[in-house]
């Protein structure tokens, strides 16, 4: 089946196989930031934005994104907020193996896009679908709080 979507700002046509997931289609098209961790919708390492909302791409049929806007980390590499988040995560030591990090970044980006007020509680809720086995979430949450604080000041 042929579908059209807006992938990271670019009009894109995909030939999708029956049963193919959005995760598979994205990786096949070179969006390697989208990671496979479980394929059951439980770990969040495959998180992308579908029309601006974070979703687990492993449980979204590729066919369903026909006509939609799909954003992966690759599409946000030039975005100021994303760069701020990445920098803060790196500087706070929140990146260990890094496998969960693209998914976390997408979830945090979606949260911070909503604008203040954002406290630790909302950050922890936003990250609850992103499993990380390395960090215990302390440093990722600290990093997100630091970015939220800057947003608060400048808003």
């Amino acid at each position: 089946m042929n579908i059209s979507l807006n992938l990271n700002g670019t009009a894109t046509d995909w030939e999708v196989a029956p049963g193919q997931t959005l995760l598979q289609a994205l990786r096949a098209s070179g969006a390697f930031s989208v990671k496979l961790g479980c394929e059951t919708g439980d770990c969040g390492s495959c998180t992308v934005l579908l029309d601006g909302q974070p979703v687990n791409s492993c449980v979204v049929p590729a066919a369903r994104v026909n006509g939609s806007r799909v954003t992966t980390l690759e599409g946000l590499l030039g975005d100021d907020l994303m760069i701020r988040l990445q920098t803060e995560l790196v500087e706070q030591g929140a990146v260990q193996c890094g496998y969960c990090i693209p998914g976390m970044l997408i979830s945090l980006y979606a949260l911070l896009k909503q604008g203040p007020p954002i406290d630790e509680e909302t950050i922890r809720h936003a990250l609850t679908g992103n499993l990380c086995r390395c960090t215990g979430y302390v440093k990722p949450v600290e990093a997100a709080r630091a970015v939220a604080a800057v947003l608060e000041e400048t808003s």
Partner: protein
Amino acid sequence: MKVVGKNVIKIDAFKLARGEPVFTDDFTRQGMLYAKVLRSPHPHARILNVDAAAALKLDGVVDVIWHRDVKAIPHTRAGQSYPEPSPYDTLILSPKARFIGDRVAVVVAESVAQAIAALDHIVVDYEELPALTDMDQSLTNSEILIHEEPDPRGISEAGMTNIAARIDKQVGDVEAALKECDLVVTRDYHLPRVQASHIEPHISIAWVDEDDRLIVRTSTQVPFHLRRMLARILEIPEARIRVIKPRVGGGFGDKQELVVEDLVGVLALRTGRPVRLEFTREEEFVAARYRHPQRVTMTTGVMKDGTIVANRMYVLADTGAYGSHALTVQGNTGQKVLPMYPVANIHFKMDCVYTNNPISGAFRGYGAPQGCFALECHMDEVARELGMDRLELRKKNHIKLGDTDPLSAKLGEGKEGLVRVVKSTGLEKAIELGCEAIGWGNKREPSAAHLKRGLGMALAMQGSGIAGVDWGGATVKLNDDGSVNLSVGATDIGQGSDTVLAQMCAEELGIPYEKVIILSSDTDLTPFDVGAYASSTTYISGGAVVKAAAEVRGQLAGVLGSHWECEPEDIVFSDGMVTGPGDQSMTIAEVALFALYKAMIQPMATASHMSNDSPPPFAAQFAEVEVDTETGQVHLCRFVSAVDCGTVIHPKMVEGQIEGAVAQGMGYALFEEVLLDRTGRVLTPDFLDYKIASSLDVPEMVTILVPTDEPTGPYGAKAAGEVPIDGPAPAIVNAICDAVGVRMFRIPATAERVWRGLKEETR
């Protein structure tokens, strides 16, 4: 120090945060095939025949292999130094399935979907055999033998019983000593089967290159061991194999094992095409490795004044269908744990049995979390029976500076060990700071009437590498611009070893950290290293880096000494500058140019490092819980870790290690358990049923680093990766007992179990 001890940017962090294609799977090759494993539906069965004719007719299916197609070369899949202290009880594909999920056949096809579809069309003729899935039954039953074949090596009682490994070691005379004690306390502790749950699954891609060499790109902790093991079981020379480790999405011990690499190797050689095999999450739960489930019986003899006189630990453990790491994990349960209280009489005995359950293996802590749980819960039990304060009991008896680890000489890595004396310890300080941070002795009020608060603590120690066994190499090469190529066999699996090693290299050469270009773990390009396990990298591989860098510095000092007409020893390397005793000075880049173009030498050195010591890092960990007396629900409010890992090379990364370990340890204490049915079938094969800590579960964490100066470590460093996972479970369970008076002898302490305990208490 200029670089060591600083929070430099983790060397790979930006590329990871940009989602660059750096993991094993972020890579394809022309004509790649996809493999899938057909797994046994029976816990114990002979595989009489595999009929793949129908599968082979399907679109895209290229090949199907089963045990007839591969030579039977018994081996262990444990990624350990040669000769491995694990039994050679495994074949690539065996004529017998030994657990539900054991390999039966492997399909390769043009796509994953085609490979999966083909699995249903393979017809297998099984002869079912009676199975053993209970470790007590395995211990006594010798009618049913899980490994009865005559050829395996290294099984404790091959062909006679189901015992994979045994240890029975004693110092002093425990039996006699117990008779003299004022009080003897004996308890059983039950430890569950838990899973490492690294988020990146096992994955491996192999191909044969234009020089007819087998290239294996794989998510592993042990690239060099893999090369050796693959050469033997694939029967090709090591020279024809190259193992490349890209970024790894977590390992925690589960990748200290040959889990998928042999299959992609066999299939790439057979088909001549690149072959990829990736585990599904379900396969992770069924066919990767577990922390060994154990029952630990602790007996302690103590005098009225709290002096511990004797400790006995008996461990019964379930290795599952194969015995990788059976001897050494269980050995560690005693060896890494009992020395915390270095009393004159210690008896450690363990039986590790085969069952028809999924396979146990290495998981961060490597036996110590089980032993530490038993011992540290037991200390609270002893204190309670004795009517003594539990902190005082520990303070009175714990190991101190200058003490000899009483078990070290008797118990090494599957053989006699080397005597270990404590040359650095921050344990006293850690206890003091930890107590202060948690508010020991003044419990806060619970937040509601049906809630009760409690505090608990645990002490832990581990090692830094395996004494006399672990070693690693490092090469340092100076370039024209003063940058340095550092290549190491050491394996960065996300813990940050590349960064730590680059810091040490920069420090030793007196250059900025940014000048170090690191390459790690490529068997063609880097020196050897045993790999990332046993908390060895900072201490052991770091030692090699420091030596190699010092040698390069010596070479440069030699060249400049003759040029400047001064003693080489008087030349100082610091801040990217090299200065002589007069007013001579050059930048490191000028020195490099001078060496390369005037003196015409390549400043370069390779060094190896091994240690006959394995200095223990120490941890004192404290939990504050709130228990709901109506539901049994435990809320972990705060957790304090005070850790002595010697000199801290990178504070934030060490904190990160500790915080991650606390999250894993809290899961062990409160909710993680892989459940099996009576046939050994996994009932919890996904993250919905097997819960790991999320951002909402983890407590407020306080992490305190207690630096010491370890005389045998590079810059005084010891290990940090494993010790913090030992204490959380006992500290949490001790806190539960403090809150509601219920002792959880079995973890995880789920709400249901605590609730049951509360009911019994009131009855």
